[in-house]
């Protein structure tokens, strides 16, 4: 499916933030904004909700803790109990380091896999970039022309008035 986008190109993140607020206030829906670095305050301006990744991270960590404790208690306490240095079979204080390490391991990897999955990031050859300068020094605001049914001329004027240095139109094939 081919989609048409209006691209407002901005040179500065402060101008961009201000523009986002004005354009949203004017009733135009912003499809996405592409920036070369994380712009602080853009989440609020665009109305992006707070990520729930920390909750996922906590549960992944919890999985690591339980798995590590279960593994050590099962292996040394039940499956093959051995007396090591006269300590009890289930010597909890000695199990703490491995438990801690596995908590961190599960938390970090679990969260990263979740992050890559929800963002749809995976190694691929074709990357849908609307304007290649958005990974260099430009801040690109994309407005979906098909969905919003906005008048391009009016939009151009709106973007220009809000400090866009150029306004382009681009078609993008999307899956």
């Amino acid at each position, binding site marked *: 499916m081919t989609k048409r986008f209006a691209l407002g190109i901005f040179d500065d993140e402060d101008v961009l933030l201000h523009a986002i607020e004005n354009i949203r206030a004017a009733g135009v829906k912003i499809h996405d904004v592409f920036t070369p670095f994380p712009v602080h305050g853009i989440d609020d301006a665009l109305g992006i909700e707070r990520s729930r990744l920390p909750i996922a991270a906590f549960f992944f960590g919890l999985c690591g803790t339980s798995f590590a404790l279960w593994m050590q208690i099962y292996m040394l306490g039940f499956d093959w109990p051995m007396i090591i240095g006269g300590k009890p079979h289930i010597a909890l204080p000695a199990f703490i*380091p491995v438990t801690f390490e596995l908590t961190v391991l599960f938390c970090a990897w679990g969260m990263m896999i979740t992050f890559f999955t929800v963002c749809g990031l995976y190694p691929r050859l074709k990357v849908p970039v609307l304007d290649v300068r958005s990974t260099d020094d430009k801040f690109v605001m994309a407005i979906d022309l098909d969905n919003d049914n906005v008048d391009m001329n009016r939009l151009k004027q709106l973007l220009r008035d809000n400090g866009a240095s150029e306004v382009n139109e681009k078609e993008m094939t999307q899956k």
Partner: protein
Amino acid sequence: MQHVSAVREPLVTGGKTYHDVTQDVCRQVEAKPNVRWMAALSVALFLFGVFLYSVYRTLWYGIGEWGLNKTIGWAWDITNFVWWVGIGHAGTLISAVLLLFRQKWRTSINRAAEAMTIFAVICAAMFPVLHMGRPWLAFWVLPLQNTFGSLWVNFNSPLLWDVFAISTYFSVSLVFWYTGLIPDFATIRDRAKGPIARRAYALLSFGWTGSAKHWSRYETVSLILAGVSTPLVLSVHTIVSMDFATSVVPGWHTTIFPPYFVAGAIFSGFAMVLTLMLITRVVFKLEDYITLEHIALMNKIMMITGSIVGVAYITEFFIAWYSQVEFEQYAFINRATGPYWWAYWSMMTCNVITPQLVWIRKVRYSIPLTFVLSIIVNIGMWFERFVIIVTSLHRDYLPSSWAMFSPTRIDVGIYVGTIGLFFTLFLLFAKFFPVINMAEVKSILKYGVDNGPTYVEGHGHHAHAQHAVTPGVPASAPVNYNKHD
């Protein structure tokens, strides 16, 4: 329309624009390898060859190729292991701990420091694996049921904790580092001219587009990774120190070891970061990004951690005397006055006295002096591990088995060889990967500069941006101080 703030010094000098950052960092990735880089890589590869030869001798003829004897069962191998792991710690400290403390100057150095962490841990891992004698059976350290029955690994052993600590540390550092690299790979991808480069960086960039939503999640992920990496990095050297501290050997059996080892690790790590950065900034012309201010700040951290290490040395001596344990006392007197006195006093001079020179402002801001200091600290920290390991072992409870350790050519070959391995990896990284985190540096570019580098005249954004970004700030306050905090 730029003027420098009187309140805060800019972190990046030279009035760079966002595009300048991209240009400066991508330059050496896109350029053909220069002669100096090729020469350095040849030396590193030669040393790596020495490593391969020494490994071949070790595996073919066995551990007898090393200078170990019945009394001294651990010597250069474990010394080098602890030395390398310690060096790695600075990378995580810079990327995780300084992120949590919101030290924005870290942005210029965190990429290379994290790379250093990963390569140092790879070098470190060589030693215990080779010391196994049969590295193809290295999987025996994992809790797998073996073919002889369901006997498991011993979870009470600090050596096993080490397996978990080092492997977790390596894999989490790798993930942390790679996530940070993705946006920068995307930058290189979008600039790439050749089809091979474009495809390679497209694969590496995981299809990153810089969408606001992705950035928002990316920031969350970075913060949590920093949060879990901070206790992780402290735990790693704590566990390494427990390899020694939990064994009943005079000179090792001390409760002070974990904090003392962690401080020593950060100390040596910062020395190595300084060594690498001082070379990198000149070779790749990055003086505006890794400024004298960065060098001075790293010097300060080196001084603080070096002082902690110094206090630990003295505390050990005091406790040996105070404990009234004869063996403990002998171990320490033997360290300072026995046959290995030269190693002990090299350690004391390099680690306790040299970092104190950093109190002098001129030393802190001097590039040649800092370079020399960083090398001295690296040597001193190698001696520290050598002193702890060899001098505690070489005179045990039975005087008839007292011995000295002399390294063989193979011992030296493996050690020097890992330095070759380290620099081979680092040089490849420096050529093909962005050595500075472009995205993060761009985000701090306006720090300390009143109007940003790409100020757009005629839109009057300055006044608007103020209420748009920081509603509570009085109109006279410069907007950018608060925005990025």
